[in-house]
């Protein structure tokens, strides 16, 4: 069909120059300290710095730097690998107080508005001692019907390299993501967004550390998991934001996901936001997620099979996620350092995450993961 070919040509040539919203981002610095603690004795600290600067002429640049510092008690076990993140023991990690694994991530981006069309491009590089990742992402945002309708197109390419400490090889994993979004104003206080994602993954899907124990009577063998080297993932999400009063809004969302490994999932989320005062804003979030297992995943293997996986992400189960967050906007009437500036915003968030899998995790032998997340940060307009 001629129309289909035109759409394809449009996607190929225009997606790499993509964007977000029609309004230019403000000049600001944001710095957050995020922490994660769970009952698998995993601790993660990730400070994040982001700077956005408007260069004029409808052009904005931004840069960010993130450090992921992971320490885990499970690393001291025989496998020297964390069962959740596959973080490994670094040279100085383990029983002392230094992080077991450090990941550094640097990204740079530019956004330009041409007439009403917003175009952005971002590059990211992430490195740790056994993994590296390069990403290029682009977004395009086109308004229609007096900006009542906005079409969003997104592309991201990831080129990852896996080089586990316990192996001598380096393997590649390449990922292409295409997003198509449609945001629509439905009335003076209702706005909806429909989103479709297509993700194509090729290459080595494992991390090089997980193992499978095949028990046969009194003997057992330890083998590496084997996963297909191709995965196509698709998802459709629909969410609606309703202004329920002058100060409050309610966001309802649903997502359906399916892939070529036979994983299907349903996600429901609800978010309530309200202005408690002119300076304080509160956000309450609730998310529920249900997942089926990958076709080759088994809780235990009795004989070697062409494909074998032990990663809990491939198992069936569900998760519950609740969060509460507050932002405090500074004001000259406040007699307190930093908060006395109206350019300053304090960000706080607390989250609780519970994941249940239908069989125990491969290394810690637990079916339920309970995690606590804290964020403390600030935004400063410059």
């Amino acid at each position, binding site marked *: 069909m001629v129309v289909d070919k035109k759409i394809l040509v449009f996607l190929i040539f225009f997606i790499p120059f993509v964007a*977000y*919203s*029609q*309004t230019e981002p403000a000049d600001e610095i*944001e710095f*957050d300290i*995020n922490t994660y603690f769970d009952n698998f004795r995993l601790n*993660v600290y990730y400070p*994040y710095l*982001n700077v956005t600067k408007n260069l004029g002429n409808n052009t904005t640049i931004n840069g960010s730097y993130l450090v992921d510092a992971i320490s885990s008690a499970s690393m001291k076990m025989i496998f020297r690998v964390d069962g959740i*993140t596959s973080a490994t023991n670094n040279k100085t990690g383990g029983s002392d107080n230094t992080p077991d694994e450090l990941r550094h991530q640097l990204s740079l981006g530019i956004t330009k508005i041409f007439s009403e069309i917003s175009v952005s491009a971002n590059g990211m590089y992430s490195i740790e001692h056994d993994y590296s990742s390069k990403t290029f992402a682009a977004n395009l*945002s086109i308004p229609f019907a*007096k*900006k*009542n309708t906005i079409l*969003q197109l*997104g592309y991201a390419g990831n080129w990852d390299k896996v080089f586990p400490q316990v192996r001598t090889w380096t393997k590649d994993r390449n990922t292409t993501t295409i997003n198509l*979004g449609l*945001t*629509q*104003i*439905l*009335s*003076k*206080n209702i*706005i*909806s967004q*429909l*989103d479709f*994602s*297509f*993700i194509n993954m090729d290459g080595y899907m494992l991390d090089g550390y997980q193992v499978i124990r095949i028990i046969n009577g009194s003997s057992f063998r330890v083998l590496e998991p084997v996963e297909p080297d191709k995965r196509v*993932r*698709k*998802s*459709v*999400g*629909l969410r609606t*934001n309703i*202004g329920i009063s*002058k100060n*409050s*809004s309610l966001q309802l*969302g*649903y*997502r*359906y*996901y399916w*892939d070529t*490994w036979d*994983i299907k*999932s349903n996600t429901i989320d609800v978010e309530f*936001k*309200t202005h408690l005062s002119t300076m304080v*804003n509160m956000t309450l979030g609730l998310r529920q997620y249900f*997942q089926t297992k*990958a076709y080759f995943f088994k809780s235990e293997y009795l004989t070697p099979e062409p494909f074998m996986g032990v990663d809990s*992400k491939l198992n069936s189960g569900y998760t519950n996620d609740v969060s509460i*967050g507050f932002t405090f906007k500074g004001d000259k009437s406040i007699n307190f350092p930093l908060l006395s500036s109206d350019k300053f915003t304090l960000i706080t968030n607390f989250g609780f*995450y519970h994941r249940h899998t239908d069989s125990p995790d491969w290394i810690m032998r637990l079916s339920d993961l309970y995690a606590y997340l804290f964020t403390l940060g600030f935004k400063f307009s410059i």
Partner: protein
Amino acid sequence: MIRKLLFVLIFLFLVSITGCTIVQPWERERLADPNMIFDENPIQKGIKEHYINIREGSEGGNGSQGGGCGCG
């Protein structure tokens, strides 16, 4: 069953788009409130997606930042 329900929801969404009236820029005071913007803080969204993607088998379909009055 759930997949059919999703397609019904998408169908209803598309029907609602074709049937809705244009909301003029001066009528978007409520929509301009930061609380009405999807993913008002994309940094926090990215961090949340990062820890969820490590622990769950699904990815994508979470939408992009947008909304507000769109009259800038």
